[in-house]
């Protein structure tokens, strides 16, 4: 349960950052918060207290106590995606700074209406 709450909190913090912070870097951090929260959520879906790894390396392991492997696979994929997004975002920030000489999102408003 604590994991769920934790993940939701992470997402909420991320959303807060994205919504309120005006620094580009902080927004990116906020995005990362969101993705971390989501990842945590995925993991916690498959998590079982005192579970074992879902690998039949030893005999006698109870399949019921095994952690669900699928979420872990999903998380890995999601992390890769997040990483690439993050890289792209940082690249954008660099370019933005070159054009606008600022990191304040409130001043980057050439496109509107």
């Amino acid at each position, binding site marked *: 349960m604590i994991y769920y709450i934790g993940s939701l909190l992470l997402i909420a913090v991320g959303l807060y950052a994205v919504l309120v912070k005006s620094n580009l870097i902080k927004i990116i951090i906020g995005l990362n918060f*969101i993705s971390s929260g989501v990842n945590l959520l995925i993991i916690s879906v498959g998590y079982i207290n005192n579970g074992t790894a879902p690998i039949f390396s030893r005999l006698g392991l109870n399949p019921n106590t095994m952690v669900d492997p699928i979420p872990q696979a999903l998380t890995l994929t999601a992390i890769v995606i997040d990483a690439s*997004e993050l890289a*792209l975002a940082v690249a*954008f*920030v660099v370019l*933005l700074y070159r*054009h606008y000489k600022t990191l304040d999102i409130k001043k980057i408003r050439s*496109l509107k209406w």
Partner: protein
Amino acid sequence: MVGGAHPILLIAVPLFFVFLIVFFSSFFKGIVKYLPIIAFGINLIVIYQLIPEVLGKGMVISTTAGFKPPLAIDIVVDRLSLILAAIGSVLGFLVAIYNVSYIDEEPQERYYALFTLLVTGIIWMVVTGDIFNLFVAFEVTSIAAFGLVGFHRDQGAVEAGFKYLVMGSIGGGMLLVGIIMLYAATGTLNMVDLAQKSVHLTFGQKFLAYSMIFIGLGIEGALFPLNAWLPDAHPAAPSSVSAILSGIMTTAAIYALYRLTNLMFDYKQIYTILLFFGLLTLIFGEVSAYFQQDIKRMLAYSTIGQTGLFFFAFALDSANGFQGSIMQIINHSVSKALLFLVTGGMILRIGSRKIEDFAGLGRKMKFSSFFLAIGAFSLMGLPPFFGFWSKLKIIFAALQNPNFFMVASVVIILLMSVVEGAYFFKLLQNMYFGKPAENLQISEAPAGILISFTILGLILIFISVYPTPIINLTHQVANDLMSKSYINIALRLGGL
């Protein structure tokens, strides 16, 4: 598979070509610009092979990695997916031709790689039968799109790209949350399996998951108020990319929403909410478009409006509504892509995106103007163009059970059509009869551009004057959606 039609090839081949592009870029750069043409050419062949089978059996499934569904990721092509995949491939192919003349900015290999990835992701989104796979395809598409929007790397492009990225990422996160909720509740990711297992869920549970998915796909699918990135991103991107973004990417996201709504969240209440979203999107899109001075921005807002229209039709939750919606999607994809391609060529020649600078182009760029007019007519829904048939269907569907709300909605739709007519006629009038700037010396668009939009325009003319096959096909699709035959056929064909 029978007949050698492998839907997985739709994704695998272009992905392979993405690697080829990156591979060749280091030592054989000249070939890079032609690789996407080959990739989507092969895709077209695959689609062509798929057509008889999909139309005959209703669905073609191919599984991956030797697992069996629901564990494995399967690629499912039913009639609806086929329509969208076909549009995607055709647009991908034509825009690939277009690129040859259009893109001269370095680094080209990145552009071509991202472009191929974008179209692949879109096709991927519409053919996947696995909900997490959908997310992956969604993110592939998004990231490629982020990159392409910022491709010009000038002030506007970077800003638009960044905004799009932030909103897209949030959307991706929300989509994933929704997917995980579904997984947590049912323990499966396969759509067919989900559809069956989710029957036991309560409405509240479903609604929570649905709202998350809706936000994720809604951001990508340009539903109001989640669409604020779109009017920035579409104009900022190169016109070739805008054509893809407007023509098929938002549509693909909407497709995913259709599919999931239809399979798992088939509640009257949800449809009612969607109805409002459709109407709001329509109103805000069309009204905003009217005030634009920048042609690409106008077209982008128009995309929002069109999205609202076909989303509204879908939310009618009736066979006629579905049919109208899909017809409108076809119309929108072809016409709007055509418009973006043509305006891309024009912008290339006159070097401005301002509508008033288009004055007198009707004389200088005859073909371009002609196809621009045809695309605009079809979007406005003037007969005898295809948009007329689809609009007719949508309005008829909306008034199937006339009550006050529906009549009011139809009045709004028609009013917005008037607004749409107002800005398109303003554009056309200016283009054909406006006074050109002093000694405006421009020639027709370059060959690649000309070829690609001519083909697209001819396709549009063809389906306009001979709409029967498409009407029949969409009728079948609508029946498929109504009867949820997706589940049944998939079960029969071993999709589960």
